[in-house]
């Protein structure tokens, strides 16, 4: 298929269709409305179904019902809407259903604003809802990568029978870039048949009960350990990250950033390189599982570490965890929908190298 100029939200929506998702349930919220709008007209063309739910609460529960039948399903929302879906996501994780969730993050807390943010990192990776569960989280930095990760997300969700969330800041939803959908794409995992799905019981298999209720504590404990084994496997098998910069030798500064903030970081890295400053950058692509080891290894050859985020400091806590040694970090953020510019990153690196940047310590 030839490259096509697409808006991020529409590329995400088309990628879902290409991945065989024929059911979408959602509720309007800015800045991701182009996803449901696109699918409302696209899905009927492929024999699929679009339902505009009465709320995010309803849409996540529709997703729960539809996923239980074994179909590929997706919903999308933005930060406050994801908060409303949280309860349902917990049930979906507990019932081990594969679903794909998209969060085009906007600035909070509360109603906040509608402009880009990364302030849902904690929500995505640590505290999405009640109970002991995780979602596999993928963070694209371009429209092409968003389209690719959406298709991977369906395979990963099916393989792990677990929600997979694709998180983008508002820029991923709104900007336009060329996108190509590969026609020869194969599943990235070996996917077993969905024998657990509720499709009507002819007594030729065990009765399908889609459920997260386990009143017997011993049974629930076994279920919890079963879920943990999946999260452990994700941590072994699914970590994705990218490294940019000098492959060998000491780094003056190592930048750690994800999503579109990493694109800004790459621009700064290239310009600083021309100034003779050795800068490397690690970009986590999976936020859970997080690339702790890669960051630790890269940090070993860096004099200074700079974390840049569109939040007051959320991913930086995982960077501290990665380094283990309480090593001080430098941090730069913009908030409220304001973006980080390459100049800000370049200035920050100069401040660090000149000893004018305040260090952040944890613990």
């Amino acid at each position, binding site marked *: 298929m030839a490259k096509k100029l697409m808006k991020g939200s529409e590329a995400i929506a088309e990628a879902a269709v290409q991945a065989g998702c024929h*059911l979408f*349930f959602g509720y309007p919220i800015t800045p991701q409305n182009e996803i449901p709008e696109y699918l409302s007209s696209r899905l009927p063309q492929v024999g699929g*179904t679009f*339902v505009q*739910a*009465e*709320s995010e*609460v*309803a*849409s996540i*529960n*529709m*997703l*729960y*019902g*539809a*996923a*239980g*039948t074994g*179909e590929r*399903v997706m919903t999308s929302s933005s930060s406050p809407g994801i908060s409303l879906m949280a*309860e*349902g996501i917990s*049930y979906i994780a507990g*019932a081990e259903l594969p679903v794909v969730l998209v969060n085009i993050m906007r600035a909070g807390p509360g109603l906040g604003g509608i402009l880009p943010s990364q302030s849902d990192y904690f929500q995505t990776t640590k505290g999405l809802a009640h109970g002991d569960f995780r979602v596999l989280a993928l963070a694209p930095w371009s429209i092409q990568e968003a389209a690719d990760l959406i298709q991977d997300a369906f395979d990963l969700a099916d393989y792990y029978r677990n929600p997979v969330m694709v998180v983008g800041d508002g820029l991923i939803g709104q900007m336009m870039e060329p996108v190509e959908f590969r026609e020869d794409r194969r599943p990235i995992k070996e996917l077993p048949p969905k024998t657990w799905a*509720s*499709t*009507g*019981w*002819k007594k030729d298999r065990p*009765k*399908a*009960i*889609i*459920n*997260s*209720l386990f009143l017997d504590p011993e049974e629930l404990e076994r279920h919890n350990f079963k879920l943990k084994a999946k999260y452990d496997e994700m941590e072994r098998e699914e970590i994705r990250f990218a490294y940019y910069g000098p492959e060998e030798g000491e780094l003056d500064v190592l930048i750690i950033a994800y999503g579109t903030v990493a694109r800004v970081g790459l621009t700064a890295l290239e310009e600083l390189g021309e100034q003779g400053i050795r800068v490397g950058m690690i970009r986590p692509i999976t936020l859970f599982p997080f690339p702790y080891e890669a960051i630790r290894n890269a940090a070993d050859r860096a004099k200074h570490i700079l974390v840049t985020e569109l939040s007051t400091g959320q991913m930086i806590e995982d960077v501290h965890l990665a380094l283990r040694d309480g090593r001080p970090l430098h941090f730069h953020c913009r908030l409220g929908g304001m973006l980080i510019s390459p100049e800000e990153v370049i200035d920050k690196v100069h401040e660090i190298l000149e000893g004018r940047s305040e260090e952040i310590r944890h613990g």
Partner: protein
Amino acid sequence: MAEPVFIRPESLSDVSTHYCPGCTHGIFHRLVAEVLDELGLRERTVGVAPVGCSVLAYNYFDCDFHEAAHGRAPAVATGIKRARPDLIVFSYQGDGDLASIGMAEIVHCANRGEKVTVVFINNAIYGMTGGQMAPTTMPGQVATTCQMGRDVELAGYPIRMAELISTLKTPAFIARASGHTPLHAVNAKEMLRRAFRYQAEGRCFSMVELLSTCPTNWGMPPAEAMKWLEKNMLPYYPLGVFKTPDGGDRAPHPIQPDGRD
């Protein structure tokens, strides 16, 4: 050899339930199961259980099941039916589940005209959590969160769900029945049969509200509870068909004391 004339419906699992003695859930589980059997629907039926006393309904009905979050069964049913329109999908919900926390889901499911069947058990109280006031609790009725009786000045009047849903323009089958006498149970089964038949024919959304008792939380013996239902609930919650997909007839048609429509 004698022929058995009364057997367990195939759609009902051969297990003991956890329901209290005298609870009407047993009657209505059986009626739903008999209807599924008689219409030959069991093999393509998927049920949706609520949160409440019937939370374990998936163990009692012998068909595929989803356990929904509190109040969300109509949304879950929507998801199942939209994914697999060939399936017969029903939710089984209590009054706290459907008329309180799940009000948005039931109204919009009905308004979209989802081709699903909702079995709504109205026993005027929260059962599983221990007898708290429900949106359907009668004025003056004592509950653990209205210990002097429901005060309509503070809590408003009980919500009549069948009437409320039947005001929607979208075609639907909406009825209210009861299980407090064998005759009423026969009528309730007929309402359930019509509801599932409309779904099987792909006609419309259907909801049957079933007046039920809760001897444990009402604090009275089962037989007395049946009488209390008749005396206190029937006048406020009239039985009958409130809406059919064929036309605009929304008048309730209370069944006569002799059981005839």
